[in-house]
């Protein structure tokens, strides 16, 4: 018996990408970007894949979020690579501080 994938009662089980990290090709497809541009993000130290050679690169969910933000920063605000790296790092610091505030309960 085959299941209809559009059946509204069907429960979909996905994969957690932290358990199955993305290849360069999958990351590019997920973010709608060119591989060359993602490679330049790696060279700038904006994202850090596991694996030494390009064909063995694997990207976590953190990279996915950063590449999508980087793309929007470049596309919407015209930020260059150095600026993207700076903006993402500062945003991450801000997130860390917010998380710490959340844990200590002081707002």
């Amino acid at each position, binding site marked *: 018996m085959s299941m209809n*994938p559009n059946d*509204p*009662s*069907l*429960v*979909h*089980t*996905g*994969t*957690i*990408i*932290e358990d*199955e990290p993305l290849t360069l090709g999958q990351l590019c*497809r*997920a*973010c*709608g970007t060119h591989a060359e541009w993602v490679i330049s993000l790696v060279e700038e130290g904006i994202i850090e894949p596991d694996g030494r050679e390009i064909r063995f690169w694997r990207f976590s*969910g*953190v990279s*996915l*979020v950063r590449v*999508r*933000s980087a793309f*929007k*920063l470049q*596309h*919407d*605000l*015209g930020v260059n690579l150095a600026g993207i790296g700076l*903006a993402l790092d500062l*945003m991450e610091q801000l997130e860390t501080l917010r*998380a*710490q505030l*959340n*844990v200590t*309960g002081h707002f």
Partner: protein
Amino acid sequence: MQYKDYYKFMGLSRDASQDEVKRAYKKLARKYHPDVSKETDAEAKFKELGEAYEVLKDPEKRAAYNQLGANWKSGQDFKPPPNWDEGFEFKGGGFTGSDSHEFSDFFEQMFGRAGFQSPNTGRKTTEHLRGQDSHAKIHIDLEDSYRGATRNISLSTPEMSAQGELHVKHRSLNVKIPKGIKQGQHIKLAGQGNPGLGSGEAGDLFLELVFNNHPLYRVAETDVYLDLPVAPWEAALGAKIKVPIPDGSVELTIPPNSRQGSKLRLTGRGLPTKVPGNFFVVLQIVLPPAKTDQAKEIYQNMQQTLGFNPRESMGV
């Protein structure tokens, strides 16, 4: 349909130069960019900004918009006057906003739809292309990660009809939330992204996990924190206290002479990830109010008996 005052939204006067339009856009884009801004309606504002800029940066669209006159107010019910666009040519394309399919009805009425062009100039349906991957956030409760859960999410996907028209299709999806998932992790659902063209396969859907704020618990990575109110005698003498945790409750031993803010660890009772996180109880000593004569007497006794100076280290 409601009139949109693009000048007012961008804080510009109607005779602003193209350079001023550009500068205002850059400034507001930084302010409202959803990745940067934490304003709750940043995303909506950013879209509106993109729409306003799409019109005002293009001299021809701007001139046509100006021709509507300056007497309209934002939100006012609006119908374009007949032949308002006479002498202007809005060719398909030329739209630069990536989310132009989300522009307002007002924009669409005036300048047409962006992105997909008319069927005779557009793509032929004989082409087969894989659909794009899509992204969404899914909000879950902390308890869902402790126990695992099924969540129903609503998605809207842009779809192209056989006539080449773009419309938004709403659908809902039941998604299994695996036990031990963390804030910020992603679930990939193969084939649930945007549909392909022709016989091209559908893209994938990426769901980013976000925890709802919890009234009791706070989460940091895999660790979970609880502020636990305790009475002064419980902190001073030690006690066994029943403490809520997201998947039930535990008996916790509070050691004698515990201080305000002391952290007690329940190893492995945080998020049930592969290496489980810890659960921390943070003691919050609560003073009973000295409202009755008896209560006052107890505090007075403490004062006389204990000889306690909480400011000793300050030398006063």
